[in-house]
């Protein structure tokens, strides 16, 4: 308690030097929390959109299905087993049939995935209802990225070629019924959505599917022979890895900020121990122990981070509350990050982030403040009084 009182007194009386360090340290606090909240918000938002558009409450995969091996796709389909069928009948799940195909937009060929989806499904946020109108031919929908890369537009006719179950080539023309915008690239890039029943007919695979997507919050009906249940933590693994990789840049930035702030504190400590050696001698002459002097100087250094946390709170809380509510308007360029984000990004500042960062910074500051004080441990009071630092 005495140490704290004295340290605070020393620090506040030291004036400008203290406040320079405190403000620098508070920038680190705010920057770390700000950036981390940005990425947490990004992660959460991307995850929510991806779950809504693609993963639902988890997926049953045909046991041959391996999204990383396109060559297996020809065999990755089977008749939907009864337990899943009844969920589908109750609109609690929806089947998707996936077939490799080739399209010929403007005479060039291109490998794509042909995905059959029930136009009446409500399980996923994919705008499948656009596939209901068949008056202009077999309708197909594609995402805006696909439209951009192929040059296809609404109303265009495109030839799709695939192999049926017997391996023979077949082809049909489909009409682009709509180009949809989605933040989720995995329902957009290199794929064409057509009505499930048409795809089944083309490929002669009635009642079959590659995956069955459960609705959100639908409990999986247990193990189903020949099909593997993939829960959300499995499905989201790649996404989380991606976000983590993307946030490495931010981590480096904030470690750098933290490092600079620590350097400032360390420097201040080393300097202050050097300049104040006579004061240390006086303190010892007045009856303070070496341990007491070490505690005092360490506390002075560590108090920087407490003051910094308070200062950071003064401008950081309003700032972060503001952006968390208003969100960031993101330029389209944000799409190049490898995953799409909504039009606006809302950072998430969780209590664990704020408390965790504060504790981390305070801890590191205390250690950094303590290290230079170890010189005091060998200090003789007589040397200190003569201005010597042994």
């Amino acid at each position, binding site marked *: 308690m005495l140490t704290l009182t004295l340290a605070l*007194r020393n620090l506040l*009386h030291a004036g400008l030097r203290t406040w320079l360090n405190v403000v620098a340290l508070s920038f680190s606090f705010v920057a770390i929390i700000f950036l981390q909240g940005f990425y947490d918000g990004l992660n959460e938002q991307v995850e929510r959109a991806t779950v809504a558009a693609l993963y639902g409450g988890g997926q049953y995969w045909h046991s041959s299905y391996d999204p990383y091996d396109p060559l297996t796709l020809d065999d990755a389909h089977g008749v939907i087993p009864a337990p899943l069928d009844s969920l589908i009948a109750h609109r609690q799940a929806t089947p998707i049939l996936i077939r490799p195909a080739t399209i010929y937009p403007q005479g060039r060929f291109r490998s794509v995935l042909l995905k059959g989806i029930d136009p009446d499904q409500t399980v996923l946020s994919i705008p499948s209802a656009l596939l209901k109108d068949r008056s202009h031919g077999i309708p197909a929908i594609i995402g805006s990225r696909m439209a951009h890369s192929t040059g296809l537009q609404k109303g265009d006719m495109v030839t799709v070629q695939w192999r049926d179950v017997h391996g023979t080539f077949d082809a049909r023309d489909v009409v682009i019924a709509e180009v949809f915008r989605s933040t989720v690239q995995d329902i957009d890039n290199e794929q064409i959505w057509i009505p499930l029943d048409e795809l089944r007919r083309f490929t002669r695979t009635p009642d079959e599917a590659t995956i069955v997507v459960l609705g959100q919050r639908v409990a999986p009906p247990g193990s189903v022979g020949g099909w593997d249940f993939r829960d959300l933590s499995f499905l989201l693994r790649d996404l989380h890895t991606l976000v983590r990789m993307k946030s490495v840049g931010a981590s480096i930035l904030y470690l750098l900020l933290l490092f600079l702030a620590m350097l400032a504190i360390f420097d201040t400590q080393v300097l202050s121990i050097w300049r104040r050696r006579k*004061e240390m001698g*006086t303190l*010892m002459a007045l*009856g303070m*122990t070496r341990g007491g002097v070490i505690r005092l100087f360490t506390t002075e250094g560590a108090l920087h981070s407490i003051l910094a946390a308070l200062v950071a709170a003064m401008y950081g809380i309003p700032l972060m509350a503001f952006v968390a509510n208003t969100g960031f308007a993101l330029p389209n360029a944000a799409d190049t990050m490898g995953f799409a984000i909504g039009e606006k990004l809302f950072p998430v500042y969780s209590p664990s982030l704020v408390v965790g960062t504060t504790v981390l910074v305070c801890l590191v500051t205390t250690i950094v403040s303590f290290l230079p004080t170890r010189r005091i441990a060998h200090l003789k*009071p*007589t040397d200190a*009084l003569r201005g010597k630092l042994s």
Partner: protein
Amino acid sequence: MQDLPLVVTHALDKTYALGQTTLKALDGIDLAISRGEFVGLVGPSGSGKTTLLNIIGALDVPTSGSAEILGRSVETLTHREAARLRNEHLGFIFQTFNLLPVYTVFENVEFPLLLQGIETGRRKQMVEEALAWVGLADRADSRPSQLSGGQSQRVAIARAIVKKPDVVLADEPTANLDAANSHHIMKTMLQLNRDLHTTFVFATHDEKVIGYLHRTITLVDGRIARDEHAGDSSHS
């Protein structure tokens, strides 16, 4: 009480290693200082005054021989025990005042009491009393940088005596002061010696100080050359 010695040294030596050679700063010091004395270690620069004063102040230990302060052998004290002894029983006054620069006058004088854990109300009263003794009651809120040398040293005196120590050790207290201020603080300390029976031990080569001493111990090359009481000339 009166004749129980506060400080006793026996065959006290202090040597410093200087590269390959050694330097004998104190050589066979036998000394006894009693309660209530107003005594000075005098002698030319380098004669060992500060070294001896620091040992008496439990800031340093003898190389051989013994030094007992208030019945405690400084050579056997742990660092912590020595700090406690200084805090509770000893007051220090330095040539360069050594006030804590960021503290006010009040806070400087209060400091030893904070270390002792004395509660706020009594602390305030003791500090005010000490400042009144040295005639600085009106400067309680000043900072050391706003004080003259004489005022600074008076604050240092107040800080040394505020806890009513058994001994005040003053190393060249007038070396940075002009004649008027030197006389002023010597009179102040003499007054405190008389009124509070505080023992004062000086280390000095300042004639103005020597004129006030009741006893003068002259050091030459780390040895006691003379030990005289005011008004006599007996050699020890």
